[in-house]
């Protein structure tokens, strides 16, 4: 999908119409949803302090001693435990969801940054240099697109020693496997941009390749990069959750939505609330970011509306 930078002047790049995003009701809803999650993650310490629980302490008093399910209706939801408690351990589910938001956002955002930096650099090179560099980068990108990276990540996660910090491993690996999408879009855009006269002018004036890429091309590529980046974040969040769900992501005790959902599998018939709270949090995260991403794309690429 091409993104037309269009009427904006080549060097300032910023469309006059970012404010138009506020007229897209769905995008605004997405921004609100994402804002709430950021608040939840940032305010996790404060909110859990108000509630009076942390995500690590076991609490048998909140459990039904017979079945191990939370005492009380709806998974133990009460003024004491806002989202109820985790079955078998009695850990506070609100605290798990709140601190889990930190994990999800950290890995989602950081791995996207890795993908975007790698993808933008490779895409620029492929599009601008053409020839062999283009062929190699594009071919490798095709492979990355179809590569069964989930399987690969599970396998690598299994054999990496536990002393290597898991969040860092996930950020690097997820980030690495995401560059191809960014590169494809940046490359396509670079191909059209390099025909434009301001690029030729800059070259004639003696600018080096690096200068052309950095000063002339990159400032004109931020719109498509932001769009694809925004749409990558929910995917990364879902991927981290999927890996943790499978037991190959974030290890305990660090809270993770995916791992909570994974443990909820065994309790689904007796304590469905244990699935619903972390599940809803994950859904809100991916949905709101997708809505924002769609809104941004519509904004920058009117033809796709």
């Amino acid at each position, binding site marked *: 999908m091409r993104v037309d930078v269009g009427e904006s002047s080549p060097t300032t790049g910023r469309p006059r119409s970012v404010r138009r995003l506020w007229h897209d009701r769905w995008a605004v809803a997405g921004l609100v949803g994402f804002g709430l999650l950021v608040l939840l993650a940032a305010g996790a310490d404060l909110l859990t302090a108000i509630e009076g629980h942390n995500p690590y302490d076991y609490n048998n008093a909140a459990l039904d001693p017979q079945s191990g399910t939370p005492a009380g209706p709806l998974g133990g939801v009460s003024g004491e435990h806002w989202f109820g408690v985790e079955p078998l351990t009695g850990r506070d589910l609100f605290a798990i969801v709140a601190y889990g938001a930190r994990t999800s956002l950290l890995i989602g955002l950081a791995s996207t940054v890795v993908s975007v930096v790698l993808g933008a650099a490779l895409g620029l090179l492929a599009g601008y240099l053409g020839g062999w560099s283009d062929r190699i980068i594009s071919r490798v990108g095709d492979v990355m697109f179809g590569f069964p990276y989930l*399987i690969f990540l599970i396998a*690598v996660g299994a054999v990496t020693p536990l002393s290597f910090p898991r969040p860092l491993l996930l950020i690097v690996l997820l980030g690495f496997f995401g560059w191809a999408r960014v590169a494809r879009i940046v490359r396509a855009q670079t191909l059209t941009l390099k025909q434009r006269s301001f690029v030729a002018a800059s070259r004639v004036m003696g600018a080096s390749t690096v200068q052309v890429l950095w000063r002339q091309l990159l400032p004109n590529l931020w719109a498509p990069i932001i769009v694809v980046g925004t749409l990558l974040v929910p995917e990364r969040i879902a991927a981290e959750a999927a890996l943790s769900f*499978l037991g190959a992501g974030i290890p305990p005790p660090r809270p993770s939505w995916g791992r909570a959902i994974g443990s909820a599998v065994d309790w689904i018939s007796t304590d469905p609330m244990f699935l619903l709270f972390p599940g809803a949090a994950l859904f809100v995260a991916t949905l709101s970011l*997708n809505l924002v991403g769609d809104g941004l794309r519509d904004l920058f690429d009117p033809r796709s509306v």
Partner: protein
Amino acid sequence: MRAARFVGGRLLGMLIVLLVVALISYLIFYLLPADPARLACGRPCTPANLAIARDFMGLNEPWYRQLLDFLTGIVAGRTFGSGTAAIHCAAPCFGYSFQQNAQVIDLITSRAPVTASLALGAAVLWLILGVGSGVLSAVRRGTAIDRLTMAGAVAGVSTPTYLLGLLGILVFGFTLDMVPVSGYVPIVDSPVDWAWHLILPWLVLAYVNAALYARLTRGQMLEAFGEDYIRTARAKGLSEKRVVGWHALRNVLLPVVTLFGIDLGALLGGAVITERVFGLPGIGALMIDAVQSLDLPLLLGCTLFGALVVVICNFAVDLVYGLLDPRTRGGNA
């Protein structure tokens, strides 16, 4: 001649990709400090036994030698150890699981029908659902149908498979007690039970995947509606059905085929998540078992098998591309 060169070039490319994947996988598994020999050696593991196990598995060789042995094993088969204790792994040897005492390829093929049933059934559903609703949405652009379909598509894109799967199990399995919540029945035993056990996973996978196809189809259709050839078709007085169903839909085919090749390949290589949620004993489940028992030969074999399936599907896509779009046959596109 050109067609032969096209196919030959693609086959060569396929081979190179697989070699690179094999190389990278092997290096990673080799460099990481998990030792298959130690795992197979048992307790107590004396240094002498460990040395025997390492020698038996061929782990004393340098890494490139091991990789070469592995690769020749795929073509010609190989033998681990020597004498009476030797284990022969017939071609195509994708490795040998010392933990399960079985050839990796046999383990994979024994699970393949489950994964194939799941993937192919879901793929048929999501193609129909995705392309169908995308076309409908484009034709009825701006109406309530369009908005509803696209809202459903955004929700689908944003819903993790396992979350929807678990909700499906909760609602249709436990609460309404309509469908079985797990297990697999081979199609040769009972086609009805086979389909009945797979219906929920099919629907879940189909919905989640269809979302992307609906959006893609709608976008491509709308783009086509603005093109001259559609205007020409309409001006010729063709029926709207023929304009939409024949002329505009052709514009949709190429990107849909590309996406379909990637998705189907990834799924056939092991629907890890769906299989875990619905308790289906497919290749994905095999892989999770391999991870949990640190069965490295099995993991490596599965990773390569997954890559192989993806590459074959991409190859098929390239061939279909050549048929659909003669422009791609000539150059190096």
